[in-house]
């Protein structure tokens, strides 16, 4: 199975894939392409990836979420050109109870943003194009060398951060 997709994502398919008679709670997340970024009007977006590593990293994240919350988890990320409103990422997490489903789902989107080697390039209404840098919150703290970021899994002591 591939986590990276060149075709439109289908949340319903993910929900079906994780649902089961013993798991009565499904939490989902869909990220869609916004029409603006830092004051500029965006008309379309292009996602590229270091595909083999992105697949491996997605697989690790999903496995971590499954084992931590006894959930079943499905994840897909778009690559290629996306129009405004199209889904860039879709996640479904099913568990016997909703707390675990929400926590697993939230964990996966945070870790995808933090660890999966994917980049995006925005096409603006004024004809310019720009690589999107992660927001301030995701840059290394001030005083640390730029780019000296870590993408290892969160250590187990921070698991509570994901409780929802």
């Amino acid at each position: 199975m591939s986590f990276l997709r060149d075709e439109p994502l289908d949340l319903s398919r993910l929900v079906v894939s994780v649902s089961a008679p013993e798991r009565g709670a499904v939490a989902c997340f869909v990220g869609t392409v916004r029409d603006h970024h830092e004051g500029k009007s965006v008309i379309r977006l292009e996602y590229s990836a270091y595909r083999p590593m992105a697949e491996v990293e997605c697989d690790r994240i999903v496995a971590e979420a499954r084992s931590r919350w006894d959930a079943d988890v499905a994840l897909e990320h778009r690559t290629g050109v996306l129009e405004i409103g199209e889904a860039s990422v879709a996640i479904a997490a099913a568990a016997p109870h909703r707390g675990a489903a929400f926590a697993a789902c939230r964990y996966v989107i945070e870790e995808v943003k933090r660890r999966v080697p994917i980049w995006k390039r925005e096409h603006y209404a004024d004809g310019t194009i720009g690589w999107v840098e992660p927001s301030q919150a995701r840059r290394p703290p001030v005083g640390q060398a730029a780019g000296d970021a870590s993408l290892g899994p969160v250590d187990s002591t921070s698991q509570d951060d994901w409780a929802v």
Partner: protein
Amino acid sequence: MTTSSQSTVTIRVLLFARYAEALGDNALALTVSSPATLASVIKLLRSQPGGEILPERPLCAVNLVQARLDSPVEAGDEIAVLPPLAGG
């Protein structure tokens, strides 16, 4: 296929997104002293035309796993230099 002399090794480096754009290609072969580390590869990469865009300590992966700059690297390893991630 790369060959190494007694004192140097040729390392193939994958580049992505902004870095590939700046260095004009998504893969480069660099010859560095052996034994090599990620740090020695990055240092040489930063001296290439366009390489000044790289931070001193970029995010790197060796064989699909994030690696520290003091990691040893060999011919045949898949070395990747990663701009700040922007998935999701």
